[in-house]
């Protein structure tokens, strides 16, 4: 796998888009922190970047990259290389470069301007979201052979997790507002990695008080170290499960 990874990494580097992505993230982060004298405000604008742009970039770039790698995959498949090694190498190459770009662009300024605890949580959330949406990109690639459809599916997934899901949850909240909805709300948010990250970060920022009673329940469930561990476990599952499904399907795919 390492031998294949070398060529994937070289190819992504040559592509230069990831480098541009890192630079743009860095420009944005540095300018928000230097414009705002209050670091917390800067953190809030970075939060929206982490929750919206990072997943979008990750899922879109990866999906297109995987589709464009079909020749590369075909070429290697006729040589003594394990199929799973090819798939894992592409995953590792993309994950490595997306996370590195994020660490350079957002992680570094965060460590410098925000409190260490908050910074670390945000860095972990952003890195995990990068890899989770990469994993979803692998899944959407295995769902269809057609490139346009694959990219469409990837975008739908992004829309669903970033926008639609919240809408559905909000709708349910209003419909069932007469019932105790806090517990189901906690469980529901565990089903969406973006929400999970948002809650984790907001709890760190102590703005959860603004979320009323629900916020208090969130604080109770996610604020403890147990809650934190379970949240990261859930996020980890979001990385592993879609990728494993795609891996199983890739091994059986006709090239």
């Amino acid at each position, binding site marked *: 796998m390492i031998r*294949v990874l070398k060529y994937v990494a070289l190819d992504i580097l*040559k592509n230069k888009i990831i480098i541009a992505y890192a630079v743009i993230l860095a420009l944005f982060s540095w300018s928000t922190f230097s414009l705002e004298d209050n670091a917390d405000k800067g953190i809030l604008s970075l939060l929206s970047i982490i929750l919206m742009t990072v997943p979008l970039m990750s899922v879109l770039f990866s999906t297109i990259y995987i589709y464009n790698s079909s020749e590369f995959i*075909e*070429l290697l498949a*006729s*040589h*003594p*290389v394990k*199929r799973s090694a090819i798939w894992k190498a592409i995953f590792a190459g993309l994950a490595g470069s997306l996370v590195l770009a994020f660490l350079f662009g957002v992680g570094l300024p965060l460590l410098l301007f925000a409190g260490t605890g908050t910074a670390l949580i945000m860095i972990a959330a952003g890195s995990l979201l990068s890899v989770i949406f990469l994993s979803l990109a692998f899944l959407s690639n295995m769902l269809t052979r057609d490139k346009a459809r694959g990219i469409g599916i990837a975008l739908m997934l992004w829309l669903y997790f970033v926008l639609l899901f919240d809408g559905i949850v909000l709708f349910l909240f209003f419909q069932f507002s007469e019932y105790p909805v806090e517990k189901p709300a906690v469980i529901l948010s565990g089903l969406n990695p973006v929400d999970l990250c948002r809650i984790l970060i907001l709890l760190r920022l102590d703005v959860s008080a603004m979320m009323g009673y629900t916020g208090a329940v969130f604080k109770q469930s996610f604020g403890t170290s147990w809650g934190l561990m379970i949240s990261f476990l859930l996020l980890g599952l979001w990385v592993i499960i879609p990728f494993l499904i795609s891996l199983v399907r890739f091994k059986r795919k006709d090239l």
Partner: protein
Amino acid sequence: MIEAKNISKRFGKFLALDNLGLKLESGECVALIGPNGCGKTTFIKAVLGMVLPSEGQILFDGKDIRGGNEYRRRIGYMPQIGRYPENMTVRQVIEMIKGIRGNSQEPDDELYRHFEIEKILTKKMRTLSGGTTQKVSATLAFMFRPDVLILDEPTAGLDPLAAEILKEKIIQARQRGCLVLITSHLLSELEEMVSQVVFMQEGRMLLHKTVAELKQATGQHTIAKSVIHLLKEGRQ
């Protein structure tokens, strides 16, 4: 050396390979012929593990190919349409395959020299013509001195000079004990190379004979005429 045991492959409703059984021994040069879409390329891809048969198994040296990928180290494959990463240069592709294979053996650079690959090393794969891509494919297939050569329409798109060089190389490979599996529609070209003929139609193997047997059975003097005889018979 390669044995296919009752393999079938379905693509949706379409049956590309239908209960195909075939045994190929080293030292032979086998021509795989049949009308378009009869499953030749699917069979080749199945041997390479790129297409997984729905039923049956393929043995390489007595071992099921699903057991590992190391057997591919002994195969040189030249695809019908070489698909390469578009942005890579010829040099990068060759270096990459060398790196992936990691052979300690001195590579066979005869085709590399004869096809003058050196002149196009810095060109991107995307910019190469069909024939030039075929030259790169051929060079890669022979480079690692494989025991088995699988050539899918090797001379299609090559200029006469290059085709001649490749033919020489194929004959040479067979003489040193290689198993060569070759598909082609240019029947006259096969004449000087092949020792056995496998004829396929609609995913089934219709016959597997040595060239002498084939000529005798059809009462013709050349492979080309024998095959045309078979095709006409098949249509009736």
